[in-house]
């Protein structure tokens, strides 16, 4: 595959801010920065870039491989700023085999990219931003995506879920700040519209 030094340069200039989000998403009301600086909680793995963060987090290795297959790593590492909801490995592994094969089939890369784009939102949404928005919007907020439709995030007890229903994917673990991007782990793929 052709690579350009310019593109590499674009990736390299991403901000190296690696402030670990030192709070869980649920119940997070304090500044991530403050928490990290105070050392009040255990800092999660983090990286200067989106792709670097994926390499550092084994539970996201399948998503990392698919991002690589889709050639979207350079896009997210580049100049734009994104919030990415990435399924953990268990989420991919729980898919029906035929579905997973169809998404990952070499000839179906447009579909793979469409699935991944549905998990990418514009901008840099920290856990504190999410908490604040949920508090101000009665527990439900909408984020536009790079995919086919927006995604609604809603509070359900202590969990934050994406979409409707009790089976909707939920945010798990600690978010990762990587350069100008924020990564949230989710336990399932965002399901297609029924």
């Amino acid at each position, binding site marked *: 595959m052709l690579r*350009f030094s310019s593109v590499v340069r674009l990736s390299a200039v*991403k901000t190296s801010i690696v402030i670990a989000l030192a709070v869980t998403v649920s119940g997070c009301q304090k500044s991530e920065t403050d928490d990290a600086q105070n050392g009040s909680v255990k800092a999660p793995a983090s990286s200067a870039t989106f792709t670097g963060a994926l390499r550092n987090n084994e539970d996201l290795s399948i998503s990392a491989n698919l991002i690589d297959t889709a050639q979207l790593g350079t896009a997210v590492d580049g*100049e*734009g700023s994104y919030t990415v909801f990435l399924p953990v490995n268990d989420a991919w592994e729980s898919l*029906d085999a035929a579905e997973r094969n*169809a998404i990952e089939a070499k*000839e179906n*890369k447009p579909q793979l990219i469409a699935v991944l784009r549905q998990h990418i939102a514009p901008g840099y949404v920290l856990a504190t931003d999410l908490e604040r928005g949920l508090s101000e919007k009665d527990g439900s907020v909408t*984020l536009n995506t790079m995919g*086919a439709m927006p995604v609604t995030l809603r509070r359900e007890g202590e969990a934050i879920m994406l979409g409707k229903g009790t089976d909707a994917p939920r945010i798990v673990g600690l978010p990762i700040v990587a350069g100008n991007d924020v990564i949230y782990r989710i336990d399932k793929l965002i399901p297609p519209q029924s």
Partner: protein
Amino acid sequence: MRNLMLLAGIAALSLPLSSPASAQDKGQKGNGGEKSKSSQGNGGDRKSGSSNKNSGQSIERAQGSFKELSRSNGKFEKAGRSRPDSPVENFARGDRKNERQAEKSGVVDIARREVRRDDSARTRSFENGRYAWREPNFEGCPPGLAKKNNGCLPPGQARKVVALNDQQLNWSRYSSWFSQGQSSDWRYDQGYAYRVDPTSNLVQSVIPLLGGALFGGNAWPQGYTDYQVSPYHERFFGADQNIALRYADGAMFGVDPKTQMIGSIIGLLTGDNWNVGSPAPQGYDLYNVPSNYRDQYADSANNAYRYNDGYVYEVDPTTQIVRKIIELVV
């Protein structure tokens, strides 16, 4: 079983990348040549610019460039190079007469700054729970195929395309992310979407898709000319003599200007429609300004800020009316 697809992103393919509303006005005013194509070079007839940043303008630039800020780990730095005018800035200049008049009277009427969007601008809307893109108008052909009476395919291949269905594609339910499922005249085959006339069964349009024909290592589709990139986005994503930028299917591509080979996907864009004086698009409930700009553009009781596609937008937190479009690169 749905056997015909309207692909969610394909409408965007034929339409030039939108800048915020103000940017569109430039072309309508006939100021000339602002919508550049990467293949046409980056210089064109753009003029060397001066900052238009002032309190009365709807457009302003952040201090320092996005890249420079990134390189300096958050420290604000002024980029030391001159910059060409963007269509946004040129719109702002064109609107200054009214602005000055308003300022003289001590009143700045934001609504008056609203501009008409170029009809060819690439934007999406939200309809029936999904994004809706305008129908593409690209009628080019895949590499090596001339446009013929059957659309642009040899009769045999055209029949094959018409016969395509989901089973042949072997797609899962997740393919609904890929299709709108509301139109009966689109098919997918080997990296392209085909629009088929339901009456004549002739292939009318061929659209290259991200992940299909539009993918690193492929040549940019021959004859596919709808890839306009605004001068601002050329600066934002970093076009230079070694990398030309092209835009299609919601993605920005780096293309070798000599070989026309696609090198990488260098950005994803929403195409959401932000207009000064109009309500902000839905789907921006959360503060999302990139880290380097949070001090400068922090939400308050009087102002809200949102990021999208390389811009920060100032929004009235009560009315949700967009007040300013803020460029992040010099």
